[in-house]
């Protein structure tokens, strides 16, 4: 989710960086063990894929559209750790190379959407695919985990935003950072993501149906 820099307190994004950095290191170690230096070209392409997938517009009812997040497709097609690292690198490139900003929200997006959201998708898919693969409900093994992953990630982001008013006010009582509390951020952020998450889940299922061979899997 693109949140401009300046809305989140340094205590939060620096703490998020401290939390996510060891997970990045763990991801690199795990993937390098499996792929050695051949990880480099594969991860580069996955990062580019994550970047360009996020430019695809998914259609919403009413003629509007929203950006695809792509984390569901990446996790299921390529594996959790590769998807997590590629998603994080994509955020870094967006902020620093393409000047789109979001450097302070990078660790938060990486944690919430990449790690937790991606983790929910990976675990959910693993739990369901065995049961549903050979049935006519096989698309649920993609739709449900993707929807759940995006919903959980959106909830976490809503919580992060919602605690900002607690992190300081000026002398006149006006907030220093994002001003709305959890009671506002939860419905405002989570509700739309329940819709977009479901549609992204449907789209991910449709894509993976067209792409049976998972040669990008790591």
């Amino acid at each position: 989710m693109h949140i401009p820099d300046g809305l989140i307190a340094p205590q939060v994004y620096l703490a998020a960086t401290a939390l996510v950095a060891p997970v990045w290191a763990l991801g690199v170690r795990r993937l390098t063990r499996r792929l050695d230096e051949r990880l480099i070209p594969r991860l580069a392409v996955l990062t580019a894929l994550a970047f360009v997938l996020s430019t695809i517009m998914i259609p919403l009812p009413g003629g509007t559209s929203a950006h695809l997040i792509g984390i569901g497709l990446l996790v299921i097609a390529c594996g959790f750790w590769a998807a997590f690292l590629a998603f994080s690198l994509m955020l870094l490139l967006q902020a620093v190379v393409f000047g789109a900003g979001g450097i302070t929200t990078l660790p938060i997006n990486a944690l919430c959407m990449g790690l937790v959201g991606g983790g929910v998708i990976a675990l959910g898919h693993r739990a369901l695919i065995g049961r549903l693969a050979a049935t006519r409900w096989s698309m649920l093994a993609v739709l449900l985990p993707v929807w759940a992953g995006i919903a959980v990630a959106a909830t976490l982001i809503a919580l992060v935003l919602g605690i900002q008013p607690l992190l300081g006010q000026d002398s006149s009582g006006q907030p220093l950072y994002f001003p709305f509390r959890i009671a506002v951020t939860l419905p405002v952020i989570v509700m739309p993501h329940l819709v977009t998450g479901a549609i992204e889940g449907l789209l991910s299922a449709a894509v993976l149906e067209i792409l049976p061979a998972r040669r990008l899997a790591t």
Partner: protein
Amino acid sequence: MSSKCDRCLLLAWLAAVVVISQLHDPMLLGVLLAAILVLYGRGLPGALKRVLAAVALVNITVSLGFAIHAMLDERPWLEFVLRLNLRVVVLTLLTLRASQGIRLERALDFSPGLQFLLVLAQGQIRALQRLAADFRFGFTSRNPVPLALGGRMQGAARQAAALMEKAESHAEALTEGMQSRGFFDDRD
């Protein structure tokens, strides 16, 4: 510019982001914005347009929402609205300027693997972006009448699938290309 320069710039920019995100005085933020505008250099009008396009929706929504709520409660709101908007614009403009000056792969060249990764990723982004653009043009040209939701969904799905297939062949080609030049030899 040497890697050391890029690294210093990167660190300076990151430090500036942390410092600025702790500035709350609208006056100070206003002076900072003025300084950035003066010192920005070439491309300022385009940069401003880009920054405003990127932050307008969120900033206007948050500012209006807060202001209306505060006005109804008869609480002050101006300082917050100024603080929020000035700080966001300052940081976004600074980041845009920094991105034009810093070569990230040089700044991070203490890790050769990371450097190669960043160089390759940037090249692949351009390649896949071209494909995505071609696909969108192709889809538009073959659908002169706007499609219903189902049709648009299928279009988006096929676009994503085409990108993923291309990514697969790119990954294989890149691995072969690097192997051909002996990149993996010293480690095998």
